[in-house]
């Protein structure tokens, strides 16, 4: 309960709140000798209440003018959940369907009848499917801190780790804009890990990488990523949206000449992740159903007890001050009408 005001000098008006103690504000009628009037406890009580009302009304107005508010606060909470960074691939291939074509139907993953559709039927793009399923995922994970980062040619900072689910969903919805050029996964991972830098280690820390392709990671980046993953104790989930016909992450090269990072970046990225030393799980999703399955898996696995701080935003109390003052003034006005005119 930390109260503060916008304009502290306006608080000098609180002196005015003492006025009702000196002036009853009532029209007095002369009485020859008030000592003759017997004492009356109820009258004294009513008068006391009215004075307090008047004091409170003036104080309420002054506090309202001063802009009373409750400062931003943080509350410690313990829940089950995780710190999750959604790292989304924004390469232009994500705008294609799982079949590798440009989508020709509606983009919301539903057919004309309103039923949820499955992949090829409505020609849903990979990005749209990921969007839809991640939105549901976020909806289910009420206690988590979720951040969103994207990458294509360079990493895009979208939203830091936050408990505000609306903001996260808006961030996910914002990926509906057309995608950009290339896939630069190492920088994206670097940014995703950097999200955890200012956070205390509590619960599990997850980077959920959703991509449909991979790229070779150069040697320097490899070293850095290894160090960062270890230092930040991050678990990595990779949901690989496999386009029909493209090489998967578990495919072994048929020809030994293709066995290099340039030809099979997915396999080599997978191998790199396996060698990171931190927990890692890869899912290969070839349809929205498989994607859904992968997300459900993560949802089930990552529910460690978590200690986190919930932020309650600054709360403006001046409206409450004004309404209390208005109510009290109404009461006083009513009393004024009850005043006897002699």
């Amino acid at each position, binding site marked *: 309960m930390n109260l503060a005001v916008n304009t502290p000098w306006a608080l000098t008006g609180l002196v005015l709140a003492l006025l009702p103690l000196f002036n*009853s504000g*009532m*029209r*007095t*009628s*002369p*009485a*020859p*000798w*008030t*000592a*003759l*009037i*017997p004492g*009356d406890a*109820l*009258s004294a009580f*009513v*008068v006391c209440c009215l004075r307090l009302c008047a004091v409170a009304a003036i104080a309420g107005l002054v506090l309202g003018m001063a802009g009373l508010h409750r400062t931003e606060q943080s509350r410690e909470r313990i829940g089950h959940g995780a710190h999750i960074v959604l790292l989304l691939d924004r390469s232009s291939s994500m705008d294609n369907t799982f079949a590798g074509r440009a989508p020709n139907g509606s983009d919301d993953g539903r057919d004309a009848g309103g039923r949820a559709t499955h992949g090829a039927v409505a020609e849903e793009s990979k990005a749209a499917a990921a969007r839809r399923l991640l939105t549901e995922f976020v909806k289910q994970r009420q206690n988590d801190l979720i951040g969103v980062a994207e990458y294509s040619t360079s990493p895009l900072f979208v939203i830091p780790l936050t408990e505000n689910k609306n903001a996260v969903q808006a961030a996910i919805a914002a990926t509906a804009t057309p995608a950009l050029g290339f896939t630069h996964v190492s920088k994206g991972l670097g940014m995703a890990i950097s999200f955890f830098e200012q956070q205390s280690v509590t619960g599990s820390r997850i980077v959920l990488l959703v991509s449909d392709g991979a790229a070779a990671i150069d040697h320097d980046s490899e070293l850095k990523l290894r160090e960062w993953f270890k230092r930040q104790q991050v678990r990595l989930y990779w949901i690989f949206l496999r386009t029909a016909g493209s090489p998967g992450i578990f495919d072994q090269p048929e020809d030994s000449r293709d066995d290099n990072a340039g030809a099979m970046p997915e396999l080599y990225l997978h191998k790199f992740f396996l060698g990171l030393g931190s927990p890692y799980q890869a899912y290969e999703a070839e349809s929205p159903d498989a994607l859904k399955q992968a997300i459900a898996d993560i949802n089930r696995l990552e529910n460690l007890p978590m200690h986190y701080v919930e932020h309650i935003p600054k709360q403006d109390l001046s409206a409450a001050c004004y309404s209390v003052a208005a109510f009290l003034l109404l009461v006083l006005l009513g*009393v004024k009408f*009850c*005043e*006897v005119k*002699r």
Partner: protein
Amino acid sequence: MTETLHYRLPWQSSSVYPGAHPGQMVGAGQLFKRHEPLIASPDPRRIDLRASVLDPFSSYRVRVYQQQSSVNVYLLADLSASMGYADKQQTLIRFLLAAANSAFDYGDKFGFIGCTERIEQRWLLPAGQHLGRVSALAKQLERLKFTAGATGLQNASAFLPAERSLVFLLSDCHFPLAQLRAVLGSLQDHDLVPLVLWNRDEYAALPNWGLISFQDMESHASRTLFMRPSLRQKIVAAYRQRQHDLKHIFRAFGNEPLFITEGYNSQTVNRHLQQRAA
């Protein structure tokens, strides 16, 4: 507008001047008082032959008659702030003029003593027979705004003559009872007629419901009351109790008070004056 107060004395005035009231002096009068030797009252017309014959010392006995004497009439007025309430000030002036007129009609001298917190020279009128001075005083009183208390009443006896006079005490008695006892004690040498001036608006005309803020006219302290029928009854009962207490004290000093609550009326005062003389 000439109201006359028909006051009569149930006692004998010691004044030497002839007037309209029974006096202790012998002289020209209708009422036989006693026989005296001719040497003491040398009026051969009043020689009582029968009494002279019966006198064992064979001296002439003369009838003497009681002289009707004048009396000094004083109005002792409370000029405290509470007397400025409603029409009390007008009533005071009206009574002043009526009493002065009546006193002059009877051939008596009239004096006025106005008491605020002390007794001021300008509100003092020595006993006299000048209506002009009384009217001037009444005009001055009309302009006066009553503000102070009434503690001067206790010192009023110092401004009264030594011989017994008729003193009208006009006050609303809105001061402590102990003060009233002191005032009455100091005025015991005189024939006191207490007139208690109240106004019905003070207590009976209060509303049944509502908030009302009273400001004391003397102390300026204000009190706010949440009026309701029970409180109204309590206030009326308090005034009734006060009236009872005042009557009790006045009677203890041998004076029957007249409460003027429903407007001043010379008939009411006259009835009261005649009752006390009977």
